[in-house]
């Protein structure tokens, strides 16, 4: 049976600081006898029981929450794009002689606003 310190420094004797008595030989012998009589306790599901009781890792939960947020934003953007009457807007723009550049600019601007709004909404 190895003690904690020996676990870190295999093969080493008992820590010097632990042997502060006047009879280090007796201390070393006693330490050895105490350790000899100590059985190794099999895990027998102990580790599993501990792990089952641990709280969910907060970092993992954060990453999972961020993933859900991005998915929500993407889904919202998809619905907006699906419902937006691109055809009508384009034909109306052509009828009113609005330039394609200003139309694209307006589209990008409104997309940015929608995205920013979606992200803000998801974060709160």
């Amino acid at each position, binding site marked *: *049976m190895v*003690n*904690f*310190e*020996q*676990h*870190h420094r295999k093969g080493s004797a*008992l*820590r010097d*600081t*632990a042997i*502060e*008595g006047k*009879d280090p*030989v*007796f*201390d070393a*012998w*006693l*330490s050895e*006898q*105490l*350790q*000899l*009589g*100590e*059985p*190794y*306790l*099999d*895990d027998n599901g*102990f*580790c599993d*029981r*501990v*792990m089952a*009781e*641990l*709280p969910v*890792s*907060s*970092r*993992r939960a954060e990453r999972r929450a961020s993933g859900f947020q991005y998915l929500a934003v993407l889904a919202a953007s998809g619905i907006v794009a699906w419902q937006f009457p691109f055809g009508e807007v384009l034909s109306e723009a052509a009828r009113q002689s609005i330039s394609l550049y200003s139309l694209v600019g307006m589209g990008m601007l409104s997309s940015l606003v929608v995205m920013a709004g979606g992200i803000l909404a998801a974060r709160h």
Partner: protein
Amino acid sequence: MDLDDEGLIRRAVENGDQRAYAQLVRRYQSQLRFSLRQLCGGDQGLADDMAQEAFIKAYKALPAFRGDARFSTWLYRIAYNLVMSHKRKNTPEVDQEAVDKAQADESVEEAQQLAMARDLDSAMESLSDVQRQAIHLSLQRGFSHEETANIMKLPLGTVKSHINRARAKLRSLLQPWHEEVVNG
């Protein structure tokens, strides 16, 4: 890969890696459970419950672990606090059946070893609780006197005094066995 305690703690805290913490649990479960069985008067069920609670409490407090002490010292301190707190709340009852079973499980093959183990047990039982704990932590677990004092929440001088008195008593009780080994 067999990481040291610091590496496993870093993984558990920074990456939320619970498998790293599971490795720490596996590394220390036997020794902690054995120590707590002694502290709980042989009540294996209570000792295991306390050990489980100690590991869970240590995990929750892991981000606050500064590494001033070794993980084992810190874990032991948490476990000892839990047991002492439990003992304060409950009247201590020794489960004699559990004690007998624990002693029966300790199979020492040779008759001489068995006799010496029994004498060692009796000698340890003759110590006061606090002396026995101090000897267990310092000589059986290899904690330094400072670490033992830290775990037991006692002044260093008091712990040294307990260890010295316990050692003197054990020496007088076990001297024949010690001489037999020394003289061959």
